[in-house]
């Protein structure tokens, strides 16, 4: 009774406060946007001009080359930290893929490398997860954010050395955390395995990079904060809070810890990796095509809808479990509500691409980003359906969930990051990709590999789930049924890893100066112009 009374009182107070903030915000026109704001990522006269150094070289006008030069000057202070993060991200991706592949092989070759504790499945799988989520995706996402935000804000990155320090500390934290897990020192919670003592490094590093970003935002030379900024800035507020609360030692135990665990774990996806990916896509898609997004007001719905609904979906990981019914139901409802922000983002991003399919065909950077954006829509729809109690009864506890997780983290976020790097690095280094054909090879390897991966674990997982629901179905049969699907997953994973090797080798070659100097540069044009909006 106390609980219900408290619940009602708190939700009443919460609603009153939220209503008050909403009235204040509307009265102060905080929430109004118009279609002109969608063009704030373009310079005057730039709309209608496609922009991707891997595809539209010949079409660049003299004026556009001038914009490139000005933007290049904005890049200058942040160049070192973004290049550092690019290298670290690529290394983390390769290591993460190697551990993921090993874990996959171990599921059908269980005696492979089983002589040492560090190489046991439970640790290899966990090192994979931490390397790809906190290593590859987080570092790639922040790195791209550190490059996009100054360009959007028309002002160079502030405190670049603080950001550089932060990126280094974060990297050391991830490396130390992964070594700790390999040696058996773990917190033992999914997505929170890194011991809190090492987690402090991620907190310090993340805070340093966030300070640099916020300081840049405070010095912005534009009136409007473009939608990408909402996602990236909010993500940089959310992650430290999530991480800090989840990591407080000795505070959580029993099933209370389980609810905290999944509140955190799904918010790492929903309020951290997703906004990094969606934010980057919201900048890159219109920028590469040269047309603003389809409906800018919809992006407002997409952003606040994501914040409101995604933040409360976590307990759908405990459906049918030993936690209060109401909290499970709450998460199921919010999972279904996710259709709203996802459709809003889908209309905006796919709508823009569909009206400009010529760009999708020509620009590989756009092809990566847009494929990722489509996967976001699919992963989110799938996630909403998976959260329904009836479907969850089959998919819970199976490899189907693994497929879903990879559709989000790989199909969506990783693909967007690939595209972001392909677009960004030539502009950042003022060099061309040395072997442009490798972009297509990379694309088809990871798309083909991932298709094999996804369909094998999804079909295998569904059969596993049906087996687990059936009375009298022997466990041995379920394991035998899964075998070919787990083998197919390893095939898919191998192709994906090959794609990653190509990606990493190409980055190394570019950074070592293999590519031709970019033809878009027009140094003389740019000198003397201040790197601000007024200057252009």
């Amino acid at each position, binding site marked *: 009774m106390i609980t219900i009374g408290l619940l009602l009182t708190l939700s009443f107070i919460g609603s009153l406060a939220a209503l008050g903030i909403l009235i204040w915000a509307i009265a102060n026109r905080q929430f109004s946007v118009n279609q002109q704001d969608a063009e704030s990522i373009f310079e005057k006269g730039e709309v209608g001009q496609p922009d991707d150094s891997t595809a539209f070289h010949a079409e660049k006008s003299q004026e556009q080359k001038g914009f490139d030069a000005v933007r290049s000057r904005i890049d200058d202070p942040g160049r070192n930290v973004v290049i550092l993060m690019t290298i670290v991200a690529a290394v983390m991706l390769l290591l993460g893929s190697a551990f993921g592949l090993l874990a996959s092989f171990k599921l059908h070759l269980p005696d492979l490398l089983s002589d040492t504790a560090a190489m046991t499945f439970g640790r290899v799988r966990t090192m994979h997860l931490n390397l790809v989520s906190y290593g590859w995706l987080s570092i790639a996402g922040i790195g791209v954010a550190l490059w996009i935000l100054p360009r959007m804000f028309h002002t160079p990155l502030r405190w670049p050395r603080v950001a550089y320090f932060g990126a280094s500390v974060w990297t050391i934290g991830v490396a130390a955390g992964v070594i700790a897990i390999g040696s058996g020192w*773990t917190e033992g919670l999914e997505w929170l395995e890194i011991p809190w003592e090492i987690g402090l490094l991620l907190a310090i590093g993340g805070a340093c990079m966030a300070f640099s970003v916020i300081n840049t935002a405070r010095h912005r030379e534009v009136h409007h904060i473009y939608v990408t900024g909402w996602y990236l800035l909010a993500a940089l507020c959310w992650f430290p809070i999530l991480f800090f609360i989840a990591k407080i030692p000795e505070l959580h135990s029993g099933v209370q810890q389980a609810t905290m665990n999944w509140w955190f774990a799904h918010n790492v996806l929903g309020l951290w990796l997703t906004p990094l990916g969606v934010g980057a896509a919201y900048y890159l898609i219109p920028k590469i095509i040269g047309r603003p997004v389809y409906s800018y007001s919809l992006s407002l719905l997409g952003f606040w809808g994501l914040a409101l609904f995604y933040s409360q979906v976590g307990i759908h990981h405990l459906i049918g479990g030993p936690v209060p019914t109401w909290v499970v139901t709450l998460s199921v409802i919010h999972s279904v509500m996710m259709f709203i922000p996802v459709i809003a983002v889908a209309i905006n991003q796919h709508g823009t691409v569909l009206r400009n399919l010529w760009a999708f065909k020509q620009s590989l950077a756009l092809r990566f980003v847009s494929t990722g954006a489509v996967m976001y829509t699919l992963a989110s729809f799938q996630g909403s359906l998976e959260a329904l109690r009836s479907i969850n009864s089959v998919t819970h506890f199976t490899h189907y969930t693994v497929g879903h997780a990879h559709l989000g983290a790989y199909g969506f976020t990783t693909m967007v990051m690939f595209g972001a790097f392909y677009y960004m690095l030539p502009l950042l280094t003022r060099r061309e990709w040395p072997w442009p054909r490798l972009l297509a090879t990379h694309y088809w390897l990871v798309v083909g590999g991932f298709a094999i991966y996804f369909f094998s674990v999804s079909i295998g997982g569904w059969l596993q789930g049906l087996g687990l629901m*059936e009375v009298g179905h022997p466990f041995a049969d379920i*394991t035998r049924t899964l075998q070919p699907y787990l083998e197919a997953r390893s095939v898919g994973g191998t192709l994906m890893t090959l794609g990653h090797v190509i990606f990493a080798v190409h980055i190394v070659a570019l950074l070592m100066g293999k590519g031709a100097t970019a033809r878009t540069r027009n140094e003389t044009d740019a000198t003397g112009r201040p790197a601000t909006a007024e200057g252009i």
Partner: protein
Amino acid sequence: MNRLLPLAIGAIAILASATLMLVILPGIQINQQKPSEQLQPYTAQEQAGRDQYVSLGCVYCHSQQPRSGSQTLADAAHGWGRASVGSDYHYDAPHQLGTMRTGPDLLNVGARLPSVEWHLTHLYQPRSIFDWSIMPAYPFLFEAKDQASPEDIVVKLPAEYRPDGKVVVAKQEALDLVAYLQSLKRTYPVEGELSSIRDQGFDTSKGERK
């Protein structure tokens, strides 16, 4: 959306409300309950075994949360036990509920498979018992010796899995881990208030609680 502060306040307020709903309120409700008197805290050895379980990442293939009969009858049919409730985990930190069943649920494995010998053999080489098993072998929890000393616990193995001319004896880590597995017995009944903390969303009516 032209200013930083309202954006940050809005974003943080929404996360705060999610934290209230998903972490704080369930926490208050769960922590109000005392566990059944029949649930004992882990002994030092069982806790040491639990630390092994956590450190080796057993949770990534084994759940510890049998489902209710209203959701599926299969869990009980496998012998995995009654549907668990919140207070069954009172002494668990970190929790090991798990989200994957590449292997079977283990919350009641101590009742289902009580033999120490069976577990030692199975941990040393699961395929010596089940040829279809894909569970990892844990040879590093054991030691191959020329001759066992009197206090050693020798692992029974079929000839093909025995190292040439040696005997396999359990290290302390293996014995601790088995002690923990044996302690996994949530077989006592839960009634009334204690049975209230679990997802009853599959129950057709209040009268049919499992």
